[in-house]
C-alpha cells in the first residue's frame, strides 16, 4: 500500500512538472492551457480503451447478468459514500454528512457489504461530493482542464482531489492488502463502470467534429453547472437576436473576411434590434 501511495505521489509530482513544462502562454481556449499534454493523454486513454478496457468491458458484460453489475456498482459506491461523508463535513454540511454516514451504515450491513443500495429507497439521498467539490466550495472555483490517465476529463482541482483521495488510507484498504489486489480492485471498478457506457461509444463518434474538444467543452459546461458557475467555455457573450437579425457582413468568400468587430456589449444596439424585431411582428 505504501508503495501504491509512493507511486501516486511521484505520479502527481511528475504530472505537475509535465504540466508546468507544456503550459501554453497563449492557449487557444482559455480553460485549456495544457492542451498539448491533454491531447496526448486523451490519445493514451483512447488507445488503452480501444485495446484493453473496452474489450475487457465487453467480455465482462457478456458473462455477467445486469443485477450482478448493479451490485458491483453499489459496492464501489458504498466506498464513495465514506469519502462523501468526509467531504460534506469539510464543506460544513453536517446534515449531508450524517446522511452519507447513515447510507454507509445501512448499505454495509443490511445491504450486504454494500452490494445492495437499500439506503436510496429508504429515503437517504445519494448526494455524493468529492474533494474537488470541497476545494471549489472553499474558493477554488475556476480550474484548468486536465485529462487524467484512465479517469479521463477532469480539472487540475478535481484531479488533485482525486489523487489525494486515492492516496490516503481509506476504507478500501479493508478490501485489498497489496499492490496486486489494489490493481484488481481498481481494475474491476474500471471495467464495471466502462461496461455501463458501451452502447454510447458510436454516439460520441457520430456527434463530434473533434471528439477531444467535444468532450472537453461538454465536461467543462457540466462541471460549471454542478458548481453553480457561469458557462466557462463561452467567454464571448453572444446575443442570439443580434446574430440572427444582423445582415451578414460577408460578401467575399468568408475565409478571407476579417472577423467583424465584437459589439455584443452594446446594450443600445441590442435594444434597437429588439425594438425592430417587435415592430416587425
Amino acid at each position, binding site marked *: 500500500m505504501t508503495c501504491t501511495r509512493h507511486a501516486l505521489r511521484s505520479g502527481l509530482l511528475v504530472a505537475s512538472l509535465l504540466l508546468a513544462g507544456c503550459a501554453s502562454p497563449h492557449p487557444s481556449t482559455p480553460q485549456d492551457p495544457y492542451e498539448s499534454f491533454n491531447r496526448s493523454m486523451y490519445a493514451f486513454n483512447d488507445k488503452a480503451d480501444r485495446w484493453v478496457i473496452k474489450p475487457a468491458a465487453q467480455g465482462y458484460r457478456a458473462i455477467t447478468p445486469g443485477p450482478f453489475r448493479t451490485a458491483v456498482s453499489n459496492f464501489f459506491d458504498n466506498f464513495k459514500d465514506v469519502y462523501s461523508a468526509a467531504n460534506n463535513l469539510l464543506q460544513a454540511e453536517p446534515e449531508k454528512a450524517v446522511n452519507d454516514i447513515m447510507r454507509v451504515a445501512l448499505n454495509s450491513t443490511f445491504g450486504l457489504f454494500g452490494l445492495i443500495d437499500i439506503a436510496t429507497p429508504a429515503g437517504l439521498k445519494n448526494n*455524493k461530493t468529492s474533494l474537488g467539490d470541497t476545494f471549489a466550495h472553499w474558493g477554488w472555483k475556476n480550474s484548468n482542464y486536465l485529462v487524467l490517465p484512465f479517469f479521463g476529463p477532469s480539472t487540475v482541482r*478535481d484531479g488533485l482531489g482525486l489523487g489525494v483521495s486515492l492516496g490516503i488510507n481509506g476504507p478500501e484498504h479493508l478490501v485489498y492488502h497489496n499492490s496486486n489486489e489494489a490493481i484488481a480492485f481498481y481494475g474491476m471498478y474500471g471495467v464495471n463502470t466502462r461496461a455501463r457506457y458501451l452502447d*454510447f461509444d458510436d*454516439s460520441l463518434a457520430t456527434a463530434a467534429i*473533434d471528439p477531444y474538444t*467535444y468532450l472537453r*467543452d461538454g465536461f467543462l*459546461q457540466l462541471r460549471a453547472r454542478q458548481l453553480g458557475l457561469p458557462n466557462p467555455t463561452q467567454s464571448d457573450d453572444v446575443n442570439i437576436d443580434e446574430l440572427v437579425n444582423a445582415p451578414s457582413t460577408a460578401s467575399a468568400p*468568408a*475565409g478571407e473576411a476579417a472577423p467583424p468587430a465584437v459589439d455584443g456589449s452594446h446594450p443600445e444596439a441590442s435594444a434597437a434590434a429588439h425594438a425592430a424585431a417587435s415592430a416587425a411582428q
Partner: protein
Amino acid sequence: MTDTMKKLIATFLVMLGLSAHSLAATDNPVEQVRETSRQIMDVLKQENGKNTKQVRQQVEALAVPQFDFQRMTALAVGLGWRQASPAQQSALAQQFQNLLVRTYSSTMTRFKNAQIDIQPNATMGNSGREATVKSSVSLPGNDKGPVAVDYTLYKTPQGWKVFNVSVEGASLVTVYRNQFNQEINKNGVDGLIKMLQDKNAAIPASK
C-alpha cells in the same frame, strides 16, 4: 471514472436520445414541450425491434418542425456566423441539422422506457419572447437518478421554436462552438461546410 465523468456520459446518452423532443404548436411553451414529448414517447413505445426505421422516421417528423435550425446553428457558431453569407448560413444550418438528426435518431430507441417530467413553470427571458422549459428524464435501471434537460424556445410568428437544448447544464448546441471555430479559423466558413458535408456523408444512414 469519476462521478463527473459518469454524469458527462449520462449527459451524452440522454442528449443522444431526447434532444429530438418535439413540441406541438401551442401558445404556451410548457404545454408545447409536454405535448410533443407525449407524442414522441407514444411513438417510441411502439418500437419492437422490427419497426425501428419507421419509428425513427415518425419521431423525426414530429421533432424536426419544433426546432429552428438556423437559429440553433447561429448559436453554435457564435460570432463567426456574421462572416457567413446568407447562402453559407443556410448550407451550414442544413448540414448541422443533418448531423444532429443523425446523431440523435440513431440512439432514440434506447429511451423508449424513459419517464419524462416537465416542470410546470418556464423561465421567461428577453421580454417574454424567450422561454426555458425544464424537464427531468429518468431511465429505468439508471440508479444515478434523473437527468435535467432544458429546452430554450423563442417566439416566432409560427409559434414557439426550440433553439437550444441543455443536458445537466451542458448545451448540445454550444458544445460545438469551439469545434466549429477551430475549423473556421483554419479553412474558413466553406471549410466548415465541407467538413460537415464529409462527416455527414461518412456516417452510415441509420438503419
